[in-house]
């Protein structure tokens, strides 16, 4: 089947999608958006969390066919999404066209080969929650990070001043194996504080 939907503000079309194909597979293997991660593929770890019409969902549990004519936001579109939200240009999940998403398929081997650790690049536009994750040391291996960012961003959108219990509740569907969660809590608190400032 053919599925037509919007990903990070850009209209997308996927052909020959079979009935069992998940949104996660379509994003990662067809749209060239590997940011949503494949850690359990049964909705337990939250690594593939994306916004579907504004609602955080595990992309592994959503059939691609369910996304017909709907809006998806992934970690790759988070910075633009947050920017447009701040500008008041959109309601939840209905942001206009984003930019900067390279259409390709996965990460090419040359890109992977040429990857180099480099100092935090201040020229890259990040959403407040993305910057806070870096600053608070909430990123270690980083595999859980994209899902956590999408979930945390949604929390801060509806609750600008969350308590620790609110943060824990909102992120309880996202497993992290490296950090012990303390620095993730720090990051969400930091983003909330900066949002207020």
């Amino acid at each position, binding site marked *: 089947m053919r599925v037509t939907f919007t990903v990070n503000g850009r209209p997308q079309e996927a052909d020959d999608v079979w009935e069992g194909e998940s949104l996660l597979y379509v994003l990662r293997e067809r749209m060239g958006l590997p940011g949503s991660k494949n850690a359990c593929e049964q909705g337990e770890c939250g690594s593939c969390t994306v916004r579907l019409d504004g609602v955080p969902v595990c992309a592994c549990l959503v059939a691609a066919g369910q996304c017909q004519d709907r809006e998806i936001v992934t970690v790759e579109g988070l910075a633009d999404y947050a920017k447009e939200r701040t500008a008041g240009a959109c309601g939840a999940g209905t942001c206009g066209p984003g930019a900067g998403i390279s259409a390709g398929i996965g990460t090419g081997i040359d890109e992977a080969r040429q990857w180099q650790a480099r100092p935090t690049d201040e020229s890259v536009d990040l959403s407040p929650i993305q910057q806070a994750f870096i600053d608070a040391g909430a990123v270690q291996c980083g*595999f859980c990070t994209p899902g956590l960012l999408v979930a945390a961003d949604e929390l801060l959108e509806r609750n600008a001043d969350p308590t620790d219990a609110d943060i824990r509740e909102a992120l309880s569907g996202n497993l992290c194996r490296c950090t012990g969660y303390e620095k993730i809590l720090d990051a969400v608190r930091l983003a909330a504080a900066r949002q207020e400032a």
Partner: protein
Amino acid sequence: MGTANTPTKITQGTRTKGGIGESTLRPDGTLKVTGEFAYASDLWHEDMLWGFTLRSPHAHARIVSVDISEALAQAGVHAVMTHEDLPAAKTYGLEIQDQPVLADGVVRFHGEPVALVAADHPETARRAAAKIKVVYEQLPLVVDEETATAPGAPILHPDRDDHHAPHSPHPNIVHRQPVVHGDVAAAQALAEVVVTGDYEVGMQDQAFLGPESGLAVPAEDGGVDLYISTQWLHADLRQVAPVLGLPESKVRMTLSGVGGAFGGREDLSMQAHACLLALRTGKPVKIVYNRFESFFGHVHRHPAKLRYEHGATRDGKLVYMKCRIVLDGGPYASSSPAVVGNAASLAVGPYEIENVDIEALALYSNNPPCGAMRGFGAVQACFAYEAQMDKMAAALGMHPVEFRQLNAMSQGSVMPTGQIVDSPAPVAELLRRVRAMPMPPEQQWLAAGETADVRALPGGLSNTTHGEGVVRGVGYAVGIKNVGFSEGFDDYSTARVRIEVIAGEPVATVHTAMAEVGQGGVTVHAQIARTELGVTQVTINPADTRVGSAGSTSASRQTYVTGGAVKHSCEAVREKVLELGRAKFGSYHPAWATAELLLEGGKVVTDGGEVLADLVDVLGGEAVDIELEWRHRPTEPFDLRTGQGFGHVQYSFAAHRAVVEVDTELGLVKVIELACAQDVGKALNPLSVVGQIQGGTTQGLGLAVMEEIIVDPATAKVRNPSFTDYLIPTILDTPPIPVDVLELADDHAPYGLRGVGEAPTLSSTPAVVAAIRAATGLALGRVPVRPEHLTGT
């Protein structure tokens, strides 16, 4: 060249920023938060095939026949391989090559790889694998010590000829290490109070989030390039090349983004399989395990049964200890011999006990293969000896912390292996610190005000209690872990460092084969280069096998050993740069010849802070590029009868205090707080150090109350290979983890640092269980503690 003959003073503002001791941020942070970081499972290649592994449904069986014809006939399938198609070596292993690449005539565990498929779509590969017809004849199982050593027990490796075999008491015992010190028989007469206990540790899984993945690309020279998530590229290379029948020069490995490891990526998973399929098909082949397969695709923490006996005088001095530790290694050796060595040599814990009699061994069995996991043999022992410490303290009527402090080892203490501890061992101080931290408030569910917040109670949002039946307990524990590889292993690392002027700026480049698995090695390498070379801009090259081995990212060793190699190479580069400087500018200022010179803030300065030259001017168009190996001081093997020997290069220590609340009616535990104090020698990056301590603490919490791979004893099959059924702590299960970091330098280590990653995993588990015991009064000799253990149902 203006600065060369007009010296100025360097000021605070012009010193190099981002050196050691600062909480500099991860260089890969931006890529990781934008979703651009290339993890192994994200790799893609034009014309790429997907590999899939067919695994055994039985734990021990003879393979009667394999028919691949139907699978091979499927549209889109490019290759199906069994052990008959292997071009060269048929087995591999970290130390002993006893693990088949593909099962050859017999399977020895549930999930053992039997056949491989390469197809144009992952689903096609899965469906084709299901068409492979394998006929099995089940064999009797070895599942524990009794079935392993019974007369007539099935011998899992009847032809074993490894170097442990001659001194192993039974062919189904991989390795046995006794440690005897002093005279236990004589000391038993002095003991006024004796406590004994039987303990059991379940099988924990590393449960790293990024699944095992890699992409193998066949090369024109008949070799193969592998992009892989691993902990040690060169160990993979050493094992994979013989399987492919290729020289190591034709197998090139590059590290891809690694989503956590914790020991689970020390052994090969899909490395050889992907390369075999790529060479067979002539096409790039990618393999990505799903979570189900991941539970079968890597080794786990050894489950253990431990029996301990301690004797003390009435005034609280420990006089002897006897213990026996039986670890289950599963069917293949993996790192079991080294795990046995650790369990035996660290079995006494961070205490001074003159007379000990220790025996540790690992079994071959048909349970899942076990190997490295954070804590590596020390975790199991720590759970048991810390339970014993509480038991003894109670028997003596002493406070558990004061009893531990009374017996705590310190610098100068003698280990049961005879090794003198020649660096700080602040065991009593760590306990003091963790005890002194402020306690969390009582009945936190009431803290919100009039309405109790059920989220703060055991059971949380399930709303199972409003505080009735909830009791609080506090528990303490401390542990000792070795850092680095032990027992005479040549534990070296290699670093290549280059300095040159790029776009008018001095830039350093660091190239090592260190696997960055999330621990932050790339961050500290840049910090070390800044500190030693006085430059701000440092590039960390991708890790690959074009540079010498860095050893494994495990045993808390990388900052010590590869960090040491980076420091060592930087020092050599600095010397060379200073030589260039002397040749160019030496005649301008006598300090070039007479003073101790440093590189700071992009300049050559004297140790008095006087600026002699800009690095840019010294280097000009030249680059200095040096690759060196670095070793820590050597260790030696333990004597096989007595366990004596200088086996460990460094020890690290952490202490925990756990506060828990238990709903005694439902057996639900909420850990309220898990405070930690740890000595790190020198915190190269304080932010990362605290992150490591909190992460390690949380894995210990998981072992205490929820994490276990459940193996059916009747079939040796894994019952819970998924994140639905194997539970790791969520943010709701994990309490605040306040951390108190102590920095007592180890003079033998670079910058005085001490490996950090593993120690917090040890004491966290027994501290939580001690707190549950304190809350409930139950003995609780097994982890994980489950609700039925608390309710007696």
